[in-house]
């Protein structure tokens, strides 16, 4: 295969070689079960707790507040379902937004089928939650506010601290899906009033299949996965030691490089945005210009359809995404783009490019040229463009 240009870091990231190196001994050498009593295995318990400590530090949390899961989705499911169950006596109302990841949305829909009431908050045209709407949505029966830290499609960062304050003032638990934000932007769970937070290693150059849920001390929440006494009896199942160790290493590196990385990514991202908007007509940038993830650019190209665009980019060895990865193949346009007010035909023509610090200006230049060519080609075959030019 020719050299590819990977611009889909919101879907998943390359596991860093240093991370793999850190994991390797735990497969074939230090392979013991951390729950075993013998010395050979107890070193693994130590390794798991070291990773836990690294993650706790990255959040400004205590080491006892971090619980490993099988990924971001499980963490979201856990936070929402188990809170719903634990606080049933208090109420049955949950507040979330229309732009959450499906891990949150479908979990909420599941709860709706089981007697819970869910309010899906609107967002403004930039994808930001309206705080006054949030305040108004709160009822005596509200037991949970779950609002994502940063959106996976358009990169918009929510006013988490303000949401945390509203939650605290109203004595409601606040969970945030930080799968896209953790170790990318500054997070301090205490300063921000976060009671629960989900994250996933493979979004930050760690391995797939490992995530965590931060649960503030004192928050009573049930288990989602019952069984052995692992994770302080809150999440059963033999610990994924290599995964945990890899996660720890990835966080260690991501936190150490966060500032420089963000700076580099923002520069490249802004260059990309500037060129695309200037050189491709009938194009808009989705999401907020400033309150957005350092590596996210999301465009809508009028008159063309996203999948065609993606395949043609792929034929030019450029990896990109339209909606979120796990829903491509579905026929519905992105719920996030609809929520920020895009009409269907324009939502269908969207492209998400999510950078990493490894991308170069040359790659961006090449990508922009290809986008221009392809958009032009697709518009020439588009009946919508034909209608538009006729009307003019």
């Amino acid at each position, binding site marked *: 295969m020719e050299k590819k240009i990977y611009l889909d870091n919101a879907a998943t990231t390359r596991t860093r070689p240093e991370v793999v190196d850190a994991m390797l001994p735990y497969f074939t050498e230090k392979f013991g079960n951390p729950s075993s009593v013998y010395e050979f295995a107890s070193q693994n318990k130590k390794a798991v707790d070291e990773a836990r400590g690294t993650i706790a530090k990255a959040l400004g949390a205590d080491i006892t507040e971090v619980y490993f899961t099988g990924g971001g989705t499980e963490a979201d499911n856990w936070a929402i379902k188990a809170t719903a169950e634990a606080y049933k006596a208090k109420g049955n109302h949950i507040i979330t937004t229309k732009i959450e990841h499906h891990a949150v949305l479908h979990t909420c829909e599941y709860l709706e089928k089981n007697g819970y009431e869910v309010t899906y908050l609107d967002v403004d045209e930039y994808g930001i939650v309206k705080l006054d709407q949030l305040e108004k949505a709160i009822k005596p029966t509200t037991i949970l506010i779950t609002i994502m830290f940063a959106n996976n499609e358009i990169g918009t960062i929510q006013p988490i601290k303000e949401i945390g304050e509203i939650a605290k003032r109203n004595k409601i638990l606040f969970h945030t899906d930080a799968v896209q934000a953790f170790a990318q932007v500054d997070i301090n769970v205490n300063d921000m009033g976060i009671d629960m937070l989900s994250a996933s290693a493979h979004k930050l150059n760690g391995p797939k299949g490992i995530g965590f849920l931060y649960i503030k001390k004192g928050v009573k929440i049930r288990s989602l996965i019952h069984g052995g006494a692992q994770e302080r009896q809150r999440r059963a199942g033999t610990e994924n030691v290599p995964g945990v160790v890899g996660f720890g290493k990835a966080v260690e590196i991501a936190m150490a490089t966060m500032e420089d990385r963000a700076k580099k990514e923002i520069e490249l991202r802004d260059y990309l945005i500037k060129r695309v908007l200037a050189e491709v007509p*009938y*194009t*808009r940038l989705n999401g907020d210009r400033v309150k957005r993830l350092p590596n996210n650019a999301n465009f809508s190209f*009028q*008159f*063309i*359809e996203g*999948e*065609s665009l993606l*395949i*043609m980019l792929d*034929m030019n060895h450029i990896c990109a995404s339209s909606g979120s990865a796990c829903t491509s*193949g*579905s*026929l519905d*346009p992105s719920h996030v783009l609809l929520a920020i*007010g*895009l*009409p*269907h*035909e*324009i939502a*269908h023509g969207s492209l998400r490019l999510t950078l990493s610090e490894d991308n170069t200006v040359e790659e961006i230049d090449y990508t922009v040229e290809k986008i221009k060519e392809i958009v032009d080609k697709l518009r*020439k*075959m*588009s*009946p*919508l*463009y*034909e209608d538009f030019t006729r009307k003019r």
Partner: protein
Amino acid sequence: MYTEKVMDHFSNPRNVGEIENASGVGTVGNAKCGDIMRMYLDIDETGVIQDVKFKTFGCGAAVATSSMATELVKGKTVEEALKITNKSVMEALDGLPPVKVHCSLLAEEAIHAALWDYAEKNNIKIEGLEKPKSDIHEEEETIEY
């Protein structure tokens, strides 16, 4: 995901374009579903499809099925063209992923819609052709850039 044939027709679509003063033009699908196909037919006095062009807004499968459909109708009589089904389009492409089967339906409908337009313009009735139901049933509001 796609077969080689689909990829070929997607990357080098045949018969893209418009026909000025076409004998029949049909547009099916809608932006909400993410697929719109428009087919232009040039039909001579003997009822043979001399030329065909298409424009498609849609996924890879939509483009490929449109392209393949134009190849299949070209040179056919109206009656023969009518017999082209979504299955024949799919088969000619060596198959489509299950979620994309609807695209081939759209191609069949696009042919029918263009033929219907041709029949209406010429005030004739084509045996077995019904008024196509699919069409752009709602104009989406446009937004400002």
